[in-house]
């Protein structure tokens, strides 16, 4: 029996009022254990697309399947507890400790305190934070530490699918790269299916198994990172110019050539 796609969009559209559609007839699938990165400019519809997956938003037309099941037939709350979500603005609850934040979904699922506290400690280890952090409050952490907690929270209930909405955009470059690489290792180790959105092409090329490029609510490219480098669409070529130039320059520098 063929394995179901983890996520499948079939001709999905989303309209807000009378404005131009945020998404227009989008179709694509995400395979289990795949790391898919969606690239697009602000307003290209990528956040809308992500929110459709855990039903923070509802499609105007088209069908969406999660693990082979029609999303519309699932209880949104139950669905969200099965899917990890990492927010750009982190969104930790300021009145809860780090451990309480991490274990929020297990608590909602009714785990007893001993079990969720142990799970929080385990996740602190996974995202490489000191266990002493469990009793701290979010305002006592640095930006990078906060997003590590955000990642831990998304993984707490053991989801198969993790959605990431520009999770590292607000961090400084060093922190961002360290956290991104750590997450990619977790993705492989925990056999996750990840859909991440970003406007940073370099980040996409560094992390993704597959890249989808979104422009004005439509998919204009869908393929591997190497496929993107040779894609013929004008916008994609434009997107890939920066990484190409950087790569050439860095290559030249590594060869010891000054300008």
């Amino acid at each position: 029996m063929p394995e179901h796609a983890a996520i499948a969009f079939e001709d999905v559209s989303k309209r807000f009022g009378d404005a131009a559609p945020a998404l227009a007839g989008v179709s694509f699938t995400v395979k289990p254990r795949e790391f898919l990165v969606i690239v697009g400019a602000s307003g290209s519809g990528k956040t809308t697309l992500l929110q459709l997956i855990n039903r923070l938003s509802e499609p105007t037309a088209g069908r969406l399947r999660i693990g082979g099941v029609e999303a519309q037939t699932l209880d949104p709350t139950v669905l969200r507890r099965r899917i990890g979500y990492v927010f750009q603005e982190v969104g930790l609850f300021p009145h809860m400790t780090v451990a309480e934040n991490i274990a929020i979904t297990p608590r909602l699922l009714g785990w007893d305190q001993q079990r969720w506290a142990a799970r929080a400690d385990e996740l602190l280890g996974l995202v490489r934070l000191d266990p002493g952090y469990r009793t701290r409050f979010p305002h006592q952490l640095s930006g990078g530490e906060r997003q590590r907690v955000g990642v831990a929270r998304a993984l707490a209930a053991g989801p198969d699918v993790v959605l990431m909405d520009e999770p590292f955009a607000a961090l400084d470059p060093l922190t961002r790269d360290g956290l991104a690489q750590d997450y990619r290792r977790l993705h492989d180790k925990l056999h996750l299916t990840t859909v991440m959105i970003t406007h940073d092409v370099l980040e996409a090329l560094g992390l993704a198994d597959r890249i989808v490029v979104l422009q004005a609510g439509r998919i204009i490219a869908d393929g591997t990172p190497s496929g993107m480098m040779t894609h013929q669409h004008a916008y994609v070529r434009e997107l890939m110019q920066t990484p190409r130039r950087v790569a050439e320059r860095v290559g030249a520098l590594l060869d010891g050539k000054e300008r």
Partner: protein
Amino acid sequence: MDARIGDALARLPDYFGNHVLVSVTALLLGLAISLPLAIASLRRPALRAGVLAATSIVQTIPGLALLALFYPLLLGAAALTERTLGFGFSALGFLPAVLALALYSMLPVVRNTITGIDGIDPAIKRAALGVGMTERQALTMVELPLALPVIMAGVRTASVWVIGTATLSTPIGQTSLGNYIFAGLQTQNWIFVLFGCVAAAVLALAVDQLLALIERGYSARNRNRVAAGGIGLALIVVLALIPNLSGGKGGYVIGAKPFAEQYILVALMDDRLRAKGLVATRRDGLGSAVIFEALAAGDIDAYVEYTGTIWTNQMRRTDAVPREQVLSEVAAWLKDRHGIVTVGGLGFENAYALAMTKKRATEAGINSIGDLARRAPALSIAGDYEFFGRPEWKSIRDAYGLSFRQQRQMQAEFMYPAVAAGEIDVISAYTSDGRVAQFGLQVLDDPKHAIPPYDAILLVSPKRASDRAFVDALRPLIGKISVDVMREANRRAGEGASPEVAARWLAEKIGR
């Protein structure tokens, strides 16, 4: 120590206890309505606009008026339940005060709850739903805890308002710290006024700070602080309950209107009842309209009324009838219409009258209003704010054809010195007012009986009509108090002696 301070302290347990109980009940009721209402209106813009507008309008009604409005409202409701369901309830005191104050507490709680939850970063709300919370869980686990400081600020504002405004529940029959203020203002007892204000302010500040302690303790997850605040609040309530539990409930209730003579008479009645071993509670400072309804409804058992007030305000009579006939008609009407028993007249009258200095009257040869009418075009008259609008003034004016050179309205306190100094020739006065003697005034005769008689009469509620012990304890007061003695007692109270002291003087004067 000033005797008035001792007197004030002796009343503190009763006044403080009742003040706390009415405030706390009103606040709890207000919160129980405001919080769910605010939460329900969060995602319903129409309801929200309506709720905010309605609570704002309530806030613009002066506290005293709001409290006063609830009395007739409840009286009507009580009559309705009596008719339809077969039971009534007391429309006096606690219930109207609680309802009005609860309504008064709503605006800050509703507004702060809405503002507090609106002010939460939308990203936090999105995260709450994103991690799998239902709307209800997002509200209770995230939105309410985060809005708590703002909500509590509203609750604290409401508690300060309610505790302050509760002082105004005295005229509708709810004992409160306002009893000090109303009694003090009427008897020029500034120690009482100050005592009432300070006590209310201290209570308001204490509750405010304890609520702040609880809120900060909760935010800092400091259980000890939350407990300390909770214990503090509980202690205030327990302190308030002690006198109310031990105090003999089920005793008699005797009432007084808010002026010095009434405070003295209610103290005198209390003294008589106690001498016979009967326990009575006083309801001081009841509004004129409230006190009569309260007697008819049995919320109070006895008070001193004036025949003319019943004659004009209740019976709507305007005809001139001799004194004895007024008394008998009033007594018969009270009995037939309300079942109220007129025990008898105390022996003096406190009527509206026209007065001038003895010296001026003698010089001009004026003894009666009839004499005055001939000289009036050359004279000036002053009345209190009410006088020229009352039916009594119209009937004097028409009966004698009075027309003065000048007619002015003045604060009563300034009228007496003005007439004594010759700035005004004639003033409106109360016949038993201590200042009539104090300023050497002469009350002019009314041979045409244009002003109805205002004989002081002792009334007993229908409920106590056949209570011999009660009525017999008060009966010795009948016919014993001459107008001169009453005037002197009023003068003493007006000069700063407490009504208790004046009542003791009066009791000795008339003999037991």
